[in-house]
């Protein structure tokens, strides 16, 4: 959908002769692109305005590092600025003081509160806590039912709320029942509501006063547009929220709302929701979010996924190699194995940087059969060949083709893709963002 910002900036900087230093004039057009990229990513207009000003101030006069192009240098600054804005540290749940602790989830209709409540319960359960779910949504048809069913799935008790009672009554009642359930963390799922609905906002204030929760988490949809600032501001003003959870992050939204919300509330983003399954809840990493907003994918997340899903040691090795630019066909082979294990290709692709670059590789078709072929070809190579692709001459190619049951053209194509990939990766890895996407060719 979008060309990577780095590409655009590189094009702009190409017209500038003499590298050296970033100046007021040579960053002007580039900053225009940065601005548009941020707006395209749904960062709020005013937030963008301030941000671009800050970046300009930081960029002008800076020397361009030897290893970087001016475009990359600017991206680096932009990236740093965004990560800084989104908070450098990671935050977990704040569960201090006397038990039971209460968490309250609030947000607009359809933002994902109920699913998130169950996800948090599961997480706490895994940490050895005893969560207790409280459905306080008496408005949406079957909302209580939904939480009861989710609780059942993860074997977490759910308060059997009576929807003819007021939400604050339900919460108070549940609180007194919690100790009998031996619960130490209460998770309150509130009804979705508009930030401008005074009556319903007052209801939340009431619940807060009665229950005194340690955490009030705003659950916001990562796809939210410009209005995210108004929503977050109102919820924060009324409730003094303690943090934010961004949902539906696994799609292709650039997630500029994260930046907007952080900018207006200055409250930490604690978790992200990355799927409909109950285990699809992850910690939030500001630097990854920064590159996603800029349209630069998220290789670090990919590496982490590979790590948790498969062989951790292998993945570490791979990560190191990527950083050191020592990527060879053996790594390529290893990657393919891991990719096959990960399964859903579209999910992986979503995390790839330089989608624009990928599209330029004309043989790029990431389908399962192709992967099998690639793997067979690499398997037929000798160890030396895999470590140094340059020795693979004509006769070796014929041998490999025969061994893998493919055509020589297939072998040629794989090798060509591999070298292209290596090049792209080297370019990206200077900004710390290697590109693994084109490995699929």
């Amino acid at each position, binding site marked *: 959908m979008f060309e990577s910002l780095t590409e655009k900036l590189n094009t702009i900087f190409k017209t500038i002769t003499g590298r050296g230093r970033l100046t007021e004039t040579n960053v002007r057009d580039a900053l225009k692109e940065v601005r548009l990229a941020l707006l395209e990513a749904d960062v709020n207009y005013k937030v963008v305005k301030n941000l671009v000003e800050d970046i300009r101030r930081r960029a002008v006069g800076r020397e361009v590092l030897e290893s970087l192009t001016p475009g990359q240098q600017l991206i680096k600054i932009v990236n740093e600025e965004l990560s800084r804005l989104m908070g450098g540290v990671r935050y977990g749940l704040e569960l201090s003081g006397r038990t039971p602790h209460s968490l309250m989830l609030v947000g607009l209709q*359809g933002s994902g509160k109920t699913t998130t409540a169950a996800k948090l319960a599961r997480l706490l359960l895994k940490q050895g806590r005893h969560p207790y779910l409280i459905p306080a949504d008496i408005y949406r048809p079957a*909302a209580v039912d939904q939480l009861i069913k989710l609780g059942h799935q993860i074997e977490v008790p759910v308060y059997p709320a009576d929807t003819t009672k007021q939400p604050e009554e339900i919460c108070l009642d549940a609180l007194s029942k919690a100790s009998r359930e031996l619960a130490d963390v209460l998770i309150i799922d509130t009804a979705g509501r508009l*930030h401008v609905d005074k009556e319903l906002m007052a209801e939340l204030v009431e619940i807060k006063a009665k229950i005194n929760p340690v955490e009030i988490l705003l659950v916001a*949809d990562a796809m*939210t547009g410009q209005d995210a600032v108004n929503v977050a501001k109102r919820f924060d003003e009324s409730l003094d929220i303690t943090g934010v959870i961004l949902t539906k992050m696994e799609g292709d*939204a650039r997630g500029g709302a994260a930046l907007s919300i952080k900018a207006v509330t200055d409250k930490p983003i604690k978790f992200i929701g990355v799927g409909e399954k109950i285990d699809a809840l992850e910690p939030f990493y500001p630097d990854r979010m920064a590159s996603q907003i800029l349209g630069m994918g998220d290789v670090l997340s990919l590496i982490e996924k590979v790590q948790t899903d498969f062989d951790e040691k292998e993945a570490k090795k791979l990560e190191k190699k990527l950083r050191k630019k020592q990527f060879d066909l053996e790594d390529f082979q290893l990657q393919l194995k891991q990719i096959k294990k990960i399964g859903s290709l*579209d999910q992986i692709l979503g995390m790839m940087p330089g989608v624009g670059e990928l599209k330029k590789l004309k043989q790029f078709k990431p389908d399962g059969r192709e992967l099998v072929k690639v793997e067979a070809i690499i398997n037929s190579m000798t160890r030396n060949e895999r470590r140094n692709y340059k020795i693979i001459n004509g006769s070796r190619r014929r041998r490999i083709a025969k061994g893998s049951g493919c055509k020589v053209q297939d072998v040629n194509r794989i090798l060509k893709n591999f070298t292209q990939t290596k090049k792209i990766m080297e370019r990206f890895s200077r900004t710390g963002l290697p590109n693994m996407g084109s490995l699929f060719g």
Partner: protein
Amino acid sequence: MFFKKKDTEKDIKNADPGTNLVQRLQQGLAMTRSTLTGRLDRLFFGKKEITDDLLEELEEILFTSDIGVATTQELIDSVQKKVERKELKDPEKLKFALRDHILSFLEVQAVSHLSPEPGEPLVIMVIGVNGVGKTTTIGKAAQRYILQGKKVMLVAADTFRAAAVEQLGIWGERVGADVVKQKTGADPSAVVFDGLAAAISREIDVVLIDTAGRLHTKINLMEELAKIHRVAGRKLPGAPHEVWLILDATTGQNAISQAETFNNALGLTHIVLTKLDGTAKGGIVVGISRQLKIPIKYIGIGEKIDDLRPFNARDFVQAIFD
């Protein structure tokens, strides 16, 4: 920037369906007007000249309404060109030019699609990402058809989300429509197949199919939708006659990606824009109409049964600039 008139919202929620259409539409658009339009009006008020500042403010209004980069740039560029060529001098004319330009995006032809054969039900498939308001829109739309004297059936093809079937069931009771359902976890295509069989034998006029929310980036889930679509056509040739994509007005630029992907997968016939009762300006409508040319059928302006209003491009823009 904020939605100031709480009363307006109340009025809308309590509006009785008998009030005349224009009035209701105007009420429905009050939010949009108090934001985008009110701001435009304030912006133009008392201005004698078109200055760069004015253009920048204009740009801000368009951007903060979620109109999006490409569309905003096109609108501003065209205004700027006219100013340069001295075709446009006074701010009041600028307003009209802008209005007409936005209107030209919004006025799209109906997407051609099949109609049911006489005696057969109109089958509508409702799709969209998670939580946008599919089930609620189905409830509200069912009510509208029932008020027109139609016999309506709801088909619970969201067999994935916990209690989704129950939720649709409650809407069915509320509006007095038959609901065809199976257990959570059942094959949604099978539910649709059985639903259409039942609809034919019970001589239903309108069938609304509720599907599970899914992100458009999930290939397997998109294939599942395509399968539901195919199976419907197998049971009743021509079905589903309409495919409605539900979009949440608070969504930003991703709505365009959603509309594109769902359109490629299934061929959309209509768009419904929900949650316009918040402070979101609904500007994505403009960008989507411009790029995809799919007509917007309804707007959702609340959670109540009659909070669904027809969308009319001319009225919409009129309301913006009045």
